[in-house]
């Protein structure tokens, strides 16, 4: 089963970044709203919420939802600030 070099390089990066324990998507989703709110205030994340952030670095699905949610909330906050 051969990979193209670009695929292999991407896979190697993912493999080397693998942790023994990783948060699943369900657990990430449960705290996504909280993470976005905290980050929009500029407050550092707690250790528990940092795990969500680490999951977002590995999971495109959850990362996409994070970015869209953050945009939506930032836009609403911008309207309220006017």
């Amino acid at each position: 089963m051969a990979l193209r070099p670009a695929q292999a390089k991407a896979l190697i990066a993912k493999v080397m970044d693998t942790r023994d324990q990783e948060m699943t998507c369900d657990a990430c989703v449960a705290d996504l709203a909280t993470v976005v709110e905290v980050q929009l205030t500029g407050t550092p994340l707690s250790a528990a919420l940092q795990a969500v952030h680490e999951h977002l670095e590995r999971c495109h699905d959850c990362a996409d939802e994070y970015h869209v949610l953050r945009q939506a909330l930032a836009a609403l906050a911008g309207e309220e600030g006017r």
Partner: protein
Amino acid sequence: MPMRAPRENASWIHDLRACGPVQAEALTDLRELLLRGLTKSFQAHTDTDQAFVEDVVQQALVHILGHLEQFQGRSRFTTWAMAIAVRLAMSGLRRTRWQDVSLESMSAPIEGAPAWDRDDTTSPAQHVEQHAIGETLSRLIDETLTEKQWLALTAELGGMPLEEIARRMGSNVNAVYKLLHDARQRLKHGLATAGYTAEDVRSAFP
């Protein structure tokens, strides 16, 4: 008419659980908020329109009303609601974007051995190491991963969302994530057993 003060979490839950005009007003306010947020965040998306956003918001309102007990108060209610709407929107987009792509097409065999081209940023030594590690990785994939893991891996590397991989496998996102995590762990362990340290890999692939 005086502007209504913003609702606190408890008021949202109370009003949405109420009947008649109280619930109707809360639903109207929530609908408007979700519409504003999603419209802004999907403005740059060329494959969505206002009809899509309104449809998603309607789905979200139904879901939220049916799952109010799941709100745990760890965020603002409106943030929690917006997260639900965003998830529904992204799920719909993913399904549409990937509807014509099969899992098998993502792992179509490559003809001949893939060439590890050297570029100006790679030293000869790095190039040799990259090729060696790449060969080891291919062997480990053959020896340690299941067919399912191979399919999921190549699909993920090709950009297919986990949700779409799960749909094609008759599974769920969590199970696919664990499948991929196990695959990555096997490969990581295999590379270590083959004598490659994290530093070796970092040097070869800066």
